[in-house]
């Protein structure tokens, strides 16, 4: 416990150190930021991916219409600032969002940026363009957009089917860059062209990614760095050692686990490290379409069996949060307060009492000390999935469930859960934007591609729409809490914990801000500079 407290203190001190050092001096121009990359991204096209392995190296190549302010850790509606758009305005009925675009912006190949590029990008995202993405994982985010129209070269409007204030937040994500009309989706996968602070130089699969300063960047004086070099090092031990040896200026963001962080701090005491939540939750996917988990009693027993604190203590030495679907406060903007959470079955502090209730439910369903339920817990063959799955299996024993671990290779994981070939699954869900629209529609709406459990509740779906149209944030928050509570009570996808992860950099690296409620939005790196 003492070590946890000292780590927390160290993290807090590190935060203070960064905020004070980063803004103490005048930024210096020049230098290459050397960072390792945890794996080789499948391509360079952010729109076709769903991993921040793409956002980290390629977000600096692009601009969005709007963006979450890069030096504010918590993403919220208040931290959205103009990017390629100079300003935006909602129509009176909240059904049209109009952007005035910046003039004089050029793509990296010298062609001018206009509203046609914005229309092209969103037409492709909505599947309305003759040019298609090979994959379009976030198509459903724009379900409420009827069309995108251009009034002039520098004005573009999003016409909505119904009010959706959250659209602005979705547009501010690192997942929503504006692509050039004149470059095909295929070329964007291998040689991306953007308007951002850094130009793409090369991407050698499994080896390196190189970006160089864009001298014509429309934000004068930025970026400070001459370039960014990413060396792809899939072996985490090698990567950490190389960082400790000073061969890298920065670790891959949010990739340092809490135990590894202690190693780094002991071997490189000058390194600046922060531990933050990253809006990735670990949850259980329950196949409620077939026995035995088609029984609500058994699903509820499952939820009651969880000792969330044990997961957090074992895996993160205390550095993780208990919450519902939405990331809990203070870093999460929409999550339920602790007192609300504790009213939900399974979230109460008395684990033994919860498990006693769970055992009664199991007995009601026909199981008991003499008749255990045998199931498999399927999960991906990756440590962050496997480790909590093992703890889950141990905890399920307390309610007469004998579970075996079914480890599935990544290639087969989504096909397996898509064909519902599992009983229980241990899953991780990352939210690119801390907004209920992204989380609820993507993971819980009827028919959504990423609603792996096929949970479908028409009544709650009405509430999804209601909160989505609500412009008053306080009122929307109340609705969101109500929905989140209901989702947990329905055992739609029991959330075990929201993890915290670490990022470290050398003390001469300035201007780094690690986002505390998303792992996808804070990698523009135009404000980063090297004090050496």
């Amino acid at each position, binding site marked *: 416990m003492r070590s946890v407290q000292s780590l927390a203190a160290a993290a807090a001190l590190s935060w203070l150190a960064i905020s004070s050092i980063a803004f103490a001096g005048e930024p210096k121009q020049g230098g290459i930021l050397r960072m390792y990359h945890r794996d080789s991204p499948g391509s360079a096209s952010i729109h076709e991916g769903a991993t921040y392995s793409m956002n980290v190296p390629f977000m600096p190549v692009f601009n969005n219409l709007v963006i979450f302010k890069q030096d504010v850790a918590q993403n919220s509606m208040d931290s959205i600032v103009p990017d390629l758009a100079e300003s935006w305005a909602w129509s009176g009925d909240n059904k049209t969002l109009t952007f005035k675009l910046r003039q004089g912006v050029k793509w990296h190949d010298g062609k001018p940026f206009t509203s046609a590029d914005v229309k092209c990008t969103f037409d492709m995202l909505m599947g309305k363009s003759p040019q298609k993405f090979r994959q379009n994982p976030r198509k459903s985010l724009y379900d409420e957009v009827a069309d995108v129209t251009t009034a002039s070269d520098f004005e573009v409007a999003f016409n909505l089917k119904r009010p959706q204030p959250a659209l602005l937040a979705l547009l501010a994500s690192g997942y929503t860059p504006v692509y050039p009309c004149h470059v095909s989706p295929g070329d964007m996968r291998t040689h991306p062209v953007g308007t951002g602070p850094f130009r793409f130089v090369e991407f050698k699969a499994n080896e390196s990614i190189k970006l160089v300063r864009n001298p014509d960047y429309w934000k004068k004086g930025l970026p400070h760095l001459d370039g960014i070099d990413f060396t792809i090092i899939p072996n985490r031990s*090698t990567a950490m050692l190389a960082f400790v040896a000073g061969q890298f200026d920065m670790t891959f963001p949010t990739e340092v686990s809490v135990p590894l962080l202690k190693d780094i701090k002991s*071997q490189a005491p000058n390194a600046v490290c922060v531990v933050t939540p990253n809006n990735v939750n670990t949850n259980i996917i329950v196949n409620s379409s077939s026995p035995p988990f088609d029984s609500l009693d058994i699903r509820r027993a499952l939820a009651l069996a969880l000792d969330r604190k044990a997961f957090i203590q074992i895996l993160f030495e205390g550095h993780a949060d208990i919450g519902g679907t939405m990331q809990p406060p203070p870093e999460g903007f929409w999550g339920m307060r602790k007192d609300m959470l504790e009213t939900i079955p399974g979230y109460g502090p008395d684990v033994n009492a919860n498990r006693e209730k769970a055992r009664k439910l199991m007995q009601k369903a026909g199981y008991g000390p003499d008749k255990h339920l045998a199931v498999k817990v399927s999960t991906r063959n990756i440590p962050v999935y496997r480790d909590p799955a093992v703890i889950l299996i141990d905890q399920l024993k307390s309610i007469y469930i004998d579970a075996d671990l079914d480890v599935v290779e990544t290639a087969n994981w989504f096909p397996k859960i898509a064909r519902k070939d599992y009983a229980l699954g241990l899953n991780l869900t990352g939210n690119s934007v801390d907004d209920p629209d992204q989380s609820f529609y993507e993971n819980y709406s009827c028919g959504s591609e990423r609603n792996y459990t096929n949970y479908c509740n028409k009544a709650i779906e009405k509430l999804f729409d209601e909160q989505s149209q609500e412009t008053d944030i306080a009122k929307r928050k109340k609705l969101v809490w109500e929905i989140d509570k209901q989702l947990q009570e329905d055992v739609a996808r029991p959330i075990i914990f929201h993890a915290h992860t670490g990022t470290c950099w050398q003390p001469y690296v300035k201007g780094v801000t690690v986002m505390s409620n998303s792992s996808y939005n804070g990698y523009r790196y135009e404000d980063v500079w090297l004090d050496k």
Partner: protein
Amino acid sequence: MLAYIVRRLFLMLVTLFGISVIIFVLLRIVPGNIVDILFAAAGYVDPADKANLERELGLDQPIVVQYLHWIGGLLRGDLGYSYVSEKPALDEILPRIPITARLAGLALLFSASIGIPLGVISAVRQGTRLDYALRVLSLSGLSLPSFWLGLLILMASVALFGTMPIFNPEPKTWTEAIAIYCVPAMAVGFRSAALTMRITRSSMLEILRQDFIRTARAKGASEASVNFHHALKNAILPVITVIGIEAAFLIGGLIVTETVFNIPGVARFLVEAIRWRDYPIVQNLVMMIAVVVVLANFTVDMLYAVFDPRIRYTD
């Protein structure tokens, strides 16, 4: 001799054809393909998008058609395109070959140059403290996994020198240039050196008890001449066989070493390509490895005749 070589070359071609079929079929038996993985990475499966992508990559065609397409391209020197990077497979593979070849060559050199002399010394000094020490060393070489040894080397170099020899395509100093290849080569070659040493020792012990060695000594030949000229020359055949086999198995050790030392060579690339089910890369790389192994075998057979004049390949 010529007839033998021609026959061996023909057999090599038949072997390579068999290997090509096995590689191709095995890859497709493994569950999941690149399309599954791309969609897994995106976290969703859209059947229509998936079908489009399979059509685009030619994965919807019958397996025989896919095989003929690959083998036909291979014969024309067209290795196809990487499914992941969308670049020509040849452009992806070629720059990595010299890196791995250098590493493998150095590892084999390390293995032979350390293993053979130490094996001779161990045999000549049989039963002495030196022999015991060398046997312990060789046993530890066989027991230490190369990834563990590699990590140990990296940790030690960070602790002692504040730096570590991971790969850098543009080394700044000559010492760095040497270190980035030699240190991993030693890590991967240590096990081979240990094996070579043990084989050399046992082979030498057998030869040193032969009559012709006693005769050489009786004729007044020096110890060095007896050990290296007479004994080693006759003891070397099993050692060559082992080095040949080790050359074939080296790729396994290189996968780990290239991963630990972050060397962008062929071995690590192969593992990544398998993970992505990047068929054009995997098929062509495994075929290239098969060619190397078959050629290494052939070379070893030819070397037998060079080292032992009694061996003559005839019909």
